[in-house]
C-alpha cells in the first residue's frame, strides 16, 4: 500500500505521521512517502507565529471546532515532556484586545484560564476598551516541522524534493492513495475557486523580555489586519497583514512600515528591539477546510485522493485534528479494500 503525501508543511507532515502511527502495525506493507517542492524552512508553516488560537467566530463547518480542540489537547499533553522545547512547544499567556464588548469565543473552555481583562490591564492599551486574557500554546512552525521530520525519518518514511505536476503522475508512479496537503497551491493540481492566498508578512525581532502575546482585533477589518505580537521560543513575531488574493511572496516595504509602526504603538518597549528577520507567507484561505475523499480514475485503476488543504491562518491551530480525520478517511479506504487484518487502533 503506497501512500504519497504531497506537501511538507505542518498539514502534510502531521498527516503522514498520524497515518503511519495508526496503521503501520496493522498494515506491514504500508509505504508512506512525502513529496514536496518546499521543505522547512521554506514552507508556509515556517512563517507562521505558531500561536494556537482559532478564529473568533464559529467556523462554518462545526467539525473544525472539534479539530481545534483535539489539536490543543494533543499539544497540551506534550507540554510536560522533556521534548516540549524540541517540538517547538511552549505555554504562553496573553491578551486579545477589542474596541468594543464582544461575546466570549466558543473556544473559551479549550484554552486555559480564560477571563476578561480588568480595568488596570486595559489601561496598558489606551486604544482598546475590552479584552480577554488566557493561556494558550505556541507551536513554532520550524521546530515542529523538524521534529515531525525526525519522527517520520525514524519510521522509515522517505522524502522526495520534487514539484508534483499532477495526481496522475503520482498514480502512474504507483501511489495507491494520495494525501493532498498542498496548501495555497492546491489549485495547480485541481482547480479550486474557493481557495485564495491570504498574504501575510511578519517581522521577527529580538525582544526576550516579552512573555505575553498581544493580539488586536478590529471587527470591521477582519482577522490578521491589525497588529499582533506573538513571542516565540527565541524571537518575537510582529504581524498584522492579510491581503486576500495577493500572490506576492516578496517582502513589501509599506507592509513592513505598517507592521512596525502599529506594533510599536501597541507595545512601546519594542522600539529598541533588534530586527532579526522578515518573511512573507501565503495563508491558504478557504471558506472551510477541504478535508474529504475523492476517487480518481487513471487508466484502469482507481486512486484515492484525500484532500487536506485550505487551513487559512489556523493550520497549526487545527493540524492534529485534521490529521486524525484524514487518517480516519484513510482507514475507510483500507476497510473498503479489505486490507486490514484487524480493526484499526482507536485513538
Amino acid at each position: 500500500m503506497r501512500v504519497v503525501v504531497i506537501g511538507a508543511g505542518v498539514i502534510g507532515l502531521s498527516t503522514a505521521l498520524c497515518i503511519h502511527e495508526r496503521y503501520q502495525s496493522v498494515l506491514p506493507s504500508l509505504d508512506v512517502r512525502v513529496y514536496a517542492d518546499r521543505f522547512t524552512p521554506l514552507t508556509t508553516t515556517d512563517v507562521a507565529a505558531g500561536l494556537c488560537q482559532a478564529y473568533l467566530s464559529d467556523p462554518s463547518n462545526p467539525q473544525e471546532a472539534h479539530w481545534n480542540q483535539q489539536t490543543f489537547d494533543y499539544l497540551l499533553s506534550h507540554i510536560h515532556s522533556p521534548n516540549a522545547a524540541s517540538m517547538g512547544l511552549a505555554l504562553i499567556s496573553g491578551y486579545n484586545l477589542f474596541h468594543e464588548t464582544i461575546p466570549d469565543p466558543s473556544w473559551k473552555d479549550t484554552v486555559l484560564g480564560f477571563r476578561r481583562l480588568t480595568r488596570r490591564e486595559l489601561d496598558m492599551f489606551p486604544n482598546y476598551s475590552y479584552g480577554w486574557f488566557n493561556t494558550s500554546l505556541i507551536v513554532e512552525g520550524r521546530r515542529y516541522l523538524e521534529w515531525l521530520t525526525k519522527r517520520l525519518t525514524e519510521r522509515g518514511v522517505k522524502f522526495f524534493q520534487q514539484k508534483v505536476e499532477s495526481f496522475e503522475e503520482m498514480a502512474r508512479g504507483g501511489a495507491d492513495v494520495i494525501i493532498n496537503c498542498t496548501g495555497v497551491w492546491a489549485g495547480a493540481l485541481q482547480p479550486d475557486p474557493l481557495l485564495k492566498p491570504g498574504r501575510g508578512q511578519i517581522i521577527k525581532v529580538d525582544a526576550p523580555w516579552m512573555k505575553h502575546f498581544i493580539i488586536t482585533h478590529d471587527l470591521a477589518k477582519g482577522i490578521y489586519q491589525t497588529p499582533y505580537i506573538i513571542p516565540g521560543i527565541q524571537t518575537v513575531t510582529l504581524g498584522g497583514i492579510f491581503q486576500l488574493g495577493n500572490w506576492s511572496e516578496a517582502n513589501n516595504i509599506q507592509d513592513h512600515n505598517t507592521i512596525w509602526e502599529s506594533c510599536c504603538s501597541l507595545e512601546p518597549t519594542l522600539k529598541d528591539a533588534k530586527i532579526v528577520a522578515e518573511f512573507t507567507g501565503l495563508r491558504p484561505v478557504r471558506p472551510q477546510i477541504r478535508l474529504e475523499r475523492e476517487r480518481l480514475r487513471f487508466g484502469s485503476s482507481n486512486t484515492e485522493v484525500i484532500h487536506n488543504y485550505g487551513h487559512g491562518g489556523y493550520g497549526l491551530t487545527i493540524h492534529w485534528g485534521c490529521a486524525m480525520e484524514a487518517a480516519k478517511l484513510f482507514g475507510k479506504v483500507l476497510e473498503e479494500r479489505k486490507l486490514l487484518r484487524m480493526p484499526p487502533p482507536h485513538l
Partner: protein
Amino acid sequence: MHQPQVAVVGAGVVGLSTALCLSQLGPPCAVTVVADKVTPHTTSDVAAGMLIPHTYPDIPISKQKQWFRETFDHLFAIANSAEAEDAGVHLVSGWQIFRSVPTEEVPFWADVVLGFRRMTEAELKKFPQHVFGYAFTTLKCESSTYLSWLEKRLRASGVPIVSRRLGDLWELHPAFDVVVNCSGLGSRQLAGDAEVLPVRGQVLRVRAPWVKHFIREGAGLTYVYPGASDVVLGGTRQEGAWDLRPDAQTSRDIFSRCCALEPSLRGAAGLREHVGLRPGGRGVRLQAERVRGAAGTLRVVHHYGHGGGGVAVHWGAALEAARLARSCAPAAPAPPAAPAPRL
C-alpha cells in the same frame, strides 16, 4: 543656603532607590552613595526580582501593602514605557501552587498584582502534585539591569557613587548631615544590630527561553522565574549560613525540585550558580536615630532588613526613608564658606 549633605550607605536596590528618591525630593539636598560593593556584586544582583512580597512580622500589613503598591505602580509604569528594556522591568504571568489548600484565603497583595484569581482545574492538571493555586500577572525587576539603570539615573542627577568600605558610620561624620544606612547585612556591624542574620539563598540561572510563566511553590522555597535573558531557579533559605560559595549538592536539589514543577527544564542550557545572603533575621528597620558620641551627633536613618522581600517593596520603602531622612536634616544653614565634604 547650605544644602544638607546626605550619605546613603549601600548600593543594592534599597540604597540606590533611596538615594534616587532623596535626589528627587524637595527641598534639594546633596546626596552621595557610599558602598563597598556595586552591581553586579551586591546581594540584590542574585535576586530574581519578582514582585511578590514577603510578609514582615512586625510591620502593619497596611504599611507593607502600601510599600508594595507604590513599588508595583512605579515599576508598572516603567514596564509599559520605552525605558522598560533599559530598566530591566517586564510583566510576567504565572502560578503560585500549593500541595494543600492554604489557610489564608487570599494574600494581602492580591489586588495589587494584575488579574489575580484561583487556578482552574484544567490549569492545575499541569501540576499533578498540587491541589490549589493562584494565577496572576506581576512584574519582574531584573536586578542587575535595574541596578545599572538606577546608577545611570543617579549619575545623571549628580549623585556620585563612591567606592568605600566603612568600618563605622561615624566615618561619615561630620562631612554628612544625615546618614541613610541601607547596608543590608552590613548593618550587623554598622548598626551594631546582632539580630540581622544572613538567610542564604542559592539560585541557578539557566537558558530556557520557552519558559514564559513563573511558578512559585507554596511559601516560595521552590520557584521558576523567567527573565529576559535567563530563568532563575531556586532556592534555599538557610538561616545563619554565611558561605557565598555555591554548593553542588544544593544545586542538584534545586534543579530537581524545579524540574518536578517544569519538566521541560531538563532541556535547559548554560547553568550558572549564584549565592546571596538575604539581610534577614528581623524585619525591615525603617527608623531615624540620633547617636551621640564624642565627636558630636550622628543623624542616622536606618533602612535595612528587607530579607527576601527587598525588590518587592523597595520603591515604597525608599520614598518613606527619603522623607524621613529629609525631615532629619538640620534646619540651620552651615556657614557659607564651609568646605565641600571630603571622604
